[in-house]
């Protein structure tokens, strides 16, 4: 290090390292690189997992007072409300019990009929119950964190449902918890069909908790109140899961497409107990060359697409 005067280095309070502007340029370009790499290339999941070792203990520590206050609130909750809830649950259990009894019989009948029709068996869906711990603080997206992760065998891409319908999809898995992107997130797309007519479409989040059906022509047969279910065409979500109800249909759009807003059926924004299903492997639709895979003449119905 050459100093202006031989044998004299500047006193320590003048030493400030590189000029602020140079440091700014270096760090801003580093941050911009991170942004571009994360957004465009998705290479940073490993870095995220590694550094989450630092943030996870902090998150657990930060969560303690909140869960403490919440459980204290539950402890002092109205006894009458709990009793009513208990009553409801018991009634529901009886109702579900009768359905289950019938379902066993229906399952057997279904297997027999499928064998007769020479169709492949539907895979048994195995699922895990998880609890939503909190909503992610990032105000630009709609995601929640659940208390099951890699150690419990959760895989990215798994569909997440509650007792009414589809909630979202697991997008990021950490060792002890997983991040679920809700269907109301703007980036989350879901292949669906209209239950009444069978018309297929793609559902997107539309912001503020609503959903939007896109790319449907203005003359589509659709009314307010129509139920939307999953079509299962992606091979990830099982077909026929309830998703949403049509709230408004605006046909005089200038874009050539009808603007359809829907409200989710499941408690997407209210956080409760959810079911994480094992993801189905996406299967390419049959090209028609192998006659055994798809029965001749049948449309690519969900059964044919499911493995």
């Amino acid at each position: 290090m050459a100093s202006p005067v031989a044998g004299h280095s500047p006193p320590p309070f003048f030493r400030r390292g590189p000029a602020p502007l140079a440091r700014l340029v270096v760090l801003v370009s580093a941050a911009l690189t991170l942004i571009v790499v994360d957004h465009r290339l998705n290479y940073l999941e490993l870095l995220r997992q590694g550094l989450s070792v630092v943030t996870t203990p902090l998150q657990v520590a930060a969560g303690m007072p909140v869960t403490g206050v919440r459980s204290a609130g539950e402890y002092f909750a109205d006894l009458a409300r709990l009793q009513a809830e208990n009553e409801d649950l018991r009634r529901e259990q009886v109702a579900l019990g009768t359905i289950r009894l019938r379902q066993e019989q229906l399952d057997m009948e279904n297997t027999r009929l499928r064998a007769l029709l020479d169709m492949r068996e539907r895979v048994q869906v195995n699922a895990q119950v998880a609890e939503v711990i909190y909503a992610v603080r990032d105000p630009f997206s709609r995601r929640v964190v659940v208390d099951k992760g890699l150690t419990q065998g959760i895989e990215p891409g798994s569909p997440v449902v509650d007792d009414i319908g589809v909630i979202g999809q697991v997008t990021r898995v950490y060792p002890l918890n997983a991040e679920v992107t809700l269907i109301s997130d703007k980036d989350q797309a879901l292949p669906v069909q209209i239950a009444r007519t069978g018309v297929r479409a793609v559902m997107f989040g539309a912001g503020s908790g609503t959903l939007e059906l896109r790319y449907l022509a203005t003359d589509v047969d659709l009314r307010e109140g129509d139920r939307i279910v999953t079509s299962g065409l992606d091979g990830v979500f099982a077909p026929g899961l309830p998703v949403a109800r049509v709230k408004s249909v605006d046909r005089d759009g200038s874009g050539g497409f009808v603007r359809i807003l829907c409200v989710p059926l499941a408690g997407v924004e209210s956080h409760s107990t959810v079911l994480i299903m094992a993801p189905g492997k996406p299967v390419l639709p049959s090209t028609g060359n192998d006659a055994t895979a798809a029965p001749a003449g049948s449309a690519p119905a969900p059964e044919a697409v499911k493995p």
Partner: protein
Amino acid sequence: MNQPSFSSRRILRPVRPWFIWLSLVFALLLNLMPLGRTPMLPDWVALVLCFWCVREPLRVGMGAAFVFGVLMDIGYGSLMGQHALAYVLLAYTAGTFSRRILWFGPLQQSLHVLPMLVGTQLVMLCVRLSTDAEFPGLGYFAGSLIATLLWHPISFVLLLPQYRPEDKDENRPI
């Protein structure tokens, strides 16, 4: 309470480096509290970082801002580099204006801090909107207003260790 500044006659004790880092980690802890989508929560890390960049520009700067920004990105699960970029720009601005800001009283200081914090949020908004995220609504900026109101109390609390006298006596036992 008279805010000690360059114009005040009060001489403070030097800051302890571990206290700076402890306060930043504590701010990160406050930010990581799982409060969900509650609106109008201040960004504690930005506020404390801004305070130390104004107060001690030689000790806390853009490097610390970058590190805490990356930790925030991981904690929030947001786009990697989003907070890092915004915090680095905040630290640069705060460090540049530190000599100017410290000449003012608490109210005028907050008026300097407000545009810096809103600018930090604007940077993050621009980054996320350019990557097709959802606009969170104007309530998003209320966090900065709350943080600005907190500037005076926060600077009092963070300077408390430096108010201690050199020698203890029976009137001042700490």
